[in-house]
């Protein structure tokens, strides 16, 4: 995964800057209502820009209902490869009467607005570039069907935008065809709408008033566009998952749903039979319980959920921790507490996962930052779960899980699965004995057998209550301590086995950043801003998993201050860092928190950092 901007771009000088035209560095926002099909239209814009080789990102800000409420889709084209959310909007497509006024008022002077003629937005402000378009009217040229008209109006604005910022028509057609999976009729209709939009713009709108253009680049070669949930699903499939049990919840539903689609295409044997079972459970307790039961019986099993589900899984996760059963749990986090904001993003289930369940418990958690990492870490998760015979959490968030991301194509996991310490009948024959919870290898990881193993010594009794090394029920203090001390040892063993952090030491940097997950994208852009605008070199510790490694201490030792940047109110990762660090380093901890529910943006980090740094000086 490329951590810094694509090479050779920072240098490139923009010839047309002189003409006051910004090329490949602006954002377009489409304001509409959900359930109106605008998502497809926006994907077409995003894809066609992507196909022109220009780095692009899309953020869908949608409500927690099904249809009729305001939705904003922001497409950012950036030649430097910055794909984090950007606050400032350069080009607005105002299709929603309800929010149009606020949308307009939020813009900087001189920005461009394409809007449904009848909304008369040009009355509201004078300092913007207005392009009224009779979308509804134009749509009637194509069809009389009112529902269809709504949809087509959305494709018409795609044409208008394309024309105004110079998107290659050929690429738009390719993108459109891809979007409608080649469904001939839909493609034809939409092409027509697209063309109508382009034609209208060509004939009625003065392009010279639009200071934004796209121009072909070569920065997206070998890249793909995909959402994190699909990426994670692919990872699970290629990790050989055999049992997936889940319960629908935003924003994680699409993970298991796309998994089901992929599996039906790629995991049906030659005999037409499935090499997997995907079951929609009645709730999260059942989903988690089924996955644990399957893990106990030897399947690579998983479930996927969001905050409320994590709360409901607490008891069963504690069972899997203490009885030592592998299971992979994805938490595509959203805004909490409680039901919170189901369609907004946050990184606030960290403590709920790492300390999941009552009693002394601590868990492994992997934190992908990109679709490519969703893919890789899904594979890692199953290996770790089976190696360590314990629940492994994978934390993504709504931003990563549900938005479309430009990502490196995934590399095939060329390695044999690590199925962990499982003894077969043959092994037992050889060894003669087997004690389920004995630390034979000194790494805290015991050996297990699977039900169905044909050997008289294979069987053991699994329980969430006290047990000794032979898995016999025990309330003896010494048995209890030996067992839980081993569990701690096992957790320590996991430190070096889990994905290691990615660390970049900035030359002469006295300040470091620690970030993880989707915060990464705002982080790297902010570091660039700090360097360019404030000549402030910084180092960067991208955390990729809990438990921590020795790198953490080292990173803190090498800097005066380390800003932990995260998307929650209480600084949950900061807490874990402080608990991990030796006392003498704790004074170096600084914290930057963004928790409004919108994805964090680079400018926020930069400003917070500068403000804090000035504070340090005084």
């Amino acid at each position, binding site marked *: 995964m490329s951590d810094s901007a694509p090479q050779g771009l920072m240098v490139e000088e923009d010839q047309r800057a002189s003409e006051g035209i910004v090329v490949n560095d602006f954002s377009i926002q489409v304001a509409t209502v959900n359930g109106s099909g605008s998502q497809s239209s926006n994907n077409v814009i995003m894809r066609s820009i992507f196909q022109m080789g220009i780095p692009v990102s899309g953020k869908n800000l949608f409500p927690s209902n099904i249809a009729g409420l305001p939705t904003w889709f922001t497409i950012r084209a950036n030649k430097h490869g910055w794909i984090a959310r950007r606050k400032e909007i350069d080009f607005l497509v105002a299709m929603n009467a309800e929010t149009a006024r606020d949308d307009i008022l939020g813009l900087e002077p001189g920005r461009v607005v394409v809007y449904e003629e009848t909304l008369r937005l040009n009355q509201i402000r004078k300092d913007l570039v207005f392009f009224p378009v009779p979308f509804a009217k134009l749509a009637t040229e194509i069809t009389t069907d009112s529902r269809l008209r709504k949809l087509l109006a959305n494709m018409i604005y795609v044409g208008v935008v394309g024309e105004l910022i110079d998107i290659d028509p050929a690429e738009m057609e390719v993108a459109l065809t891809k979007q409608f999976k080649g469904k001939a009729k839909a493609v034809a209709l939409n092409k027509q709408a697209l063309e109508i939009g382009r034609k209208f713009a060509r004939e009625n709108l003065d392009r010279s008033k639009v200071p934004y253009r796209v121009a072909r680049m070569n920065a997206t070669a*070998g*890249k*793909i*566009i*995909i959402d994190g949930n699909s990426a994670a699903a*692919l990872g699970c499939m*290629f990790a*050989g*998952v*055999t*049992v997936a*049990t889940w319960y629908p919840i935003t924003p994680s539903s699409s993970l298991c749903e796309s998994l089901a689609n992929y599996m039906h295409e*790629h*995991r049906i044997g030659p*005999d*037409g*039979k*499935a*090499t*997997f*079972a995907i*079951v929609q459970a*009645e*709730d999260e*307790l*059942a*989903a988690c*319980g*089924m*996955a*644990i*039961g*399957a*893990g*106990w*019986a*030897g*399947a690579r*099993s998983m479930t996927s959920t969001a905050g409320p589900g994590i709360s409901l899984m607490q*008891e*069963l996760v504690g*069972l899997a921790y203490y009885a030592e059963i592998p299971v992979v749990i994805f938490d595509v986090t959203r805004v909490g507490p409680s039901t919170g904001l189901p369609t907004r993003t946050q990184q606030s289930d960290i403590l709920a996962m790492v300390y999941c369940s009552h009693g002394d418990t601590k868990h492994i958690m992997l934190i992908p930052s990109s679709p490519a990492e969703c893919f890789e870490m899904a594979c890692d998760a199953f290996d770790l779960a089976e190696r360590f015979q314990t629940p492994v959490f994978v934390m993504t968030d709504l931003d990563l899980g549900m938005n479309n991301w430009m990502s490196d194509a*995934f590399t*095939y996991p060329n390695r044999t699965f690590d199925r962990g310490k499982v003894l077969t009948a043959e092994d037992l024959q050889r060894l003669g004995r087997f004690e389920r919870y004995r630390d034979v290898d000194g790494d805290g990881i015991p050996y297990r*057998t699977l*039900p*169905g*193993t*044909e*050997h*008289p010594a*294979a*069987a*053991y*009794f*699994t*329980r*969430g*209550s006290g047990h000794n090394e032979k898995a*016999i029920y025990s309330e003896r203090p010494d048995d209890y301590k030996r067992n839980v001390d081993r569990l701690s040892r096992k957790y320590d063993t996991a430190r070096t086995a889990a994905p290691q952090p990615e660390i970049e030491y900035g030359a002469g940097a006295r300040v470091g950043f620690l970030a993880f997950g989707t915060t990464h994208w705002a982080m790297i852009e902010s570091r660039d801003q700090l360097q360019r605008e404030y000549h402030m070199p910084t180092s960067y510790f991208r955390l990729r998993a809990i438990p921590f490694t020795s790198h953490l201490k080292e990173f803190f030792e090498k800097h005066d201050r380390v800003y932990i940047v995260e998307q929650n109110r209480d600084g949950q990762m900061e807490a874990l860092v402080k608990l991990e660090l030796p006392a003498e380093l704790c004074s170096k901890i600084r914290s930057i928190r963004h928790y409004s529910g919108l994805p964090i943006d680079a400018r926020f980090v930069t400003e917070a950092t500068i403000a804090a740094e000035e504070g340090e000086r005084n």
Partner: protein
Amino acid sequence: MSTTMTPPAAPKQVNRLGLSMADYKGGDSTLCAGCGHDAITAQIIKAFYEYGVEPHRVAKLSGIGCSSKTPAYFLGQAHGFNGVHGRMPALATGVMLANRNLVSIGVSGDGDTASIGMGQFVHMLRRNIPMMYIVENNGVYGLTKGQFSATADFGSKAKSGVMNDLPAIDICAMAIELGCNFVCRSFAGDPKQMIALLKAALGHRGTALFDVISPCVTFNNHDGSTKSYKYAKEHEELLHEISYVPFFEQIEVDYKPGETREVELHDGSHIRLRKTGADYDPTNRVQALDMLRRTYDSNEFLTGLIYVNEEKPDFLSMLNLVDSPLAALPQSQTQPGPAALDKIMRALM
């Protein structure tokens, strides 16, 4: 759940697999002397022995409670999983998804099933997960010292003297309502009936529900209790006398027609039901619910094979799984090749 091995000419003290009763025993019980649960455990051991199930193919599951401890007391050569309170159905579902070749037996209590476990119980029945699910029903929470459970009968008196003022949940009626295809009720004090039903259940494909009245001698065996040995003996309403003919034995036809019904099970075994009173057809769902309702209202408890239907598919068969256990599939079968990933990637470029 059938097995295809042919019976060897075995000496008297071993079963058709050449295994002795001892091979089906477990650890020593830590339950109260006289607990109904121990009586059920004894019949489970006997049934698996006589049927000749390979112990290593069995998965024992349970929730939490005195009843849920019992899987540790039988089939010591089978893997066991004593889960958390009320969540055994989900665990069992996962186990069967992972390894369809296992013979799974779940033991639960009335609290574990009808109180905290009701949700999962209902959905397990709805899915028809292939397993034997035994509710050791004593109307109280034994392990937490005798509070009423959701199967405590209206008007039943607790040891403390408190009266239960809520109606009991009839697990069997609920199961039939939810499409369970093998529903029976028995009594810890009636080993003969129980073992016949247990062996029959081993031949059923799908969830086989056992509601077994299993008196708690410590907290619910006093006068005024409706789950005591005494009360059960006095109020048991026998549907029929049950005998079982395993698939691996000849069936000699030696009974007057009209007096007996026979039901054939998936594995080819037969259960023979000899009339005790009015004729009763256990394949008639409406009659079954009716009968349960009437006995419920008259505070009798009905025992026997209440409902059976050998036609319905179980959950696994609906999933169209490969024949070998999912847990046992090699990487070559569970990981698509590089070409597949490449194809997917190209489509996303």
